[in-house]
């Protein structure tokens, strides 16, 4: 499955969905759909993205939060799947684009290439898990992302290809202020 085609389908007509992106290819994928003030791009701390999503989801239970990230980020954050499972945030979804490789660093194989199953790990951590390997259920998953009972973990097996890098802003303070303003949050 083409990762960018899936991300574009999931984020279509996104409304006021808040999106947090994992460092590396997932950030480029979301940026490739077009920049948006409710995108928060993570540029450091591999493994932290699910935790950022959790803090945001807990702070804004009135809004939907989607974390879009890769297998490398989730592998480093296996413990935080448990942390999220404990809190059961109903408004949080994690989209894991699993290509079995560290595509941003030269396509070294990740643990998922050796059969480690992140969908099973997420299910064991009490996340509602959906596993897909093609676009046939993309519309259904989009609905889930926008209104399904969370916490949701969408495990998407995607092609291991190195796509054109689309760089959004790397100014953390600027994207924070833009996000807060778009979210109507007092700074």
């Amino acid at each position, binding site marked *: 499955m083409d990762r960018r085609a899936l991300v574009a389908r999931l984020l279509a007509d996104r409304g006021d969905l*808040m999106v*947090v992106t994992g460092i590396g290819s997932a950030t480029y994928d979301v940026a490739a759909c077009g920049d948006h003030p409710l995108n*928060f791009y*993570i*540029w*450091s*701390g*591999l*493994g*932290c*993205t*699910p*935790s*950022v*999503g*959790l*803090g*945001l*989801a*807990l*702070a*804004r239970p009135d809004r939907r939060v989607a974390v879009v990230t890769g297998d490398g980020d989730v592998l480093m*954050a296996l*413990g*935080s799947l*448990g*942390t999220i499972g*404990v*809190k059961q945030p109903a408004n949080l979804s994690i989209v894991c684009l699993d290509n079995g490789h560290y595509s941003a660093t030269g396509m070294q194989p990740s643990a998922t290439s050796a059969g480690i199953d992140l969908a099973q790990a997420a299910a064991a951590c009490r996340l509602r898990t959906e596993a897909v390997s093609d676009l046939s259920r993309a519309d259904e998953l989009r609905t889930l992302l926008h209104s399904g009972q969370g916490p949701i973990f969408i495990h998407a097996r995607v092609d291991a290809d190195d796509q054109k890098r689309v760089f959004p802003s790397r100014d*953390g*303070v600027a*994207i*924070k202020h833009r*996000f*807060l303003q778009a*979210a109507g*949050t*007092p700074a």
Partner: protein
Amino acid sequence: MPRREREKRLARWNVEQHVHSAGQIGWPDRIHAVFRRHAIRQVGYVPDTGHARLIELCIKDNAIKDVVLASEAEGPGLVLGAALGGERAALLMQSSGVGNCVNTFSLLKNCAIPCVLLVTMRGEFNDFNPWQVPMGSITEPVLRHCGFQTYRIEREEDVEPVTDSACRMAFGGGNLQVALLLSQRMTERNKPEGH
């Protein structure tokens, strides 16, 4: 040691709350009061004997979302997410946990996210476990390298004013990361033996 005295020194297990209360009174309650005063809404922690009473107070407080972290490394991410959602957050950990956060602290620095971090020190005063010394002895310089303002608290009477100042520095517009190091000499007397 007489049995009664030994029991007094041992930690109590509160079955109803499933939390461990080391019989601490005083400074943890004052920290909690400061959290309330500064409208801190999320508290992330990895369980720790020194923070047992404060963790218990946060769990019982309906105005605070308590988040038990699998690793301290998740803490800065939680604080960033909370800030993006307009909520103030604090982290509780022992000095060993600071080492687990070195990379993820970068989120706070990169995005100018206010954070109050309370660190119970290990490996300094009368610690039964010498393996805590290597991390405990570098905790404060590591925090400074990570961009934190650091303040050591040696005496119980300093806990409330210093925690209050830390919250003002962090949340008063400076967007600073402030760490308070609670000396083991201060916290030690309230700890059960062997922790």
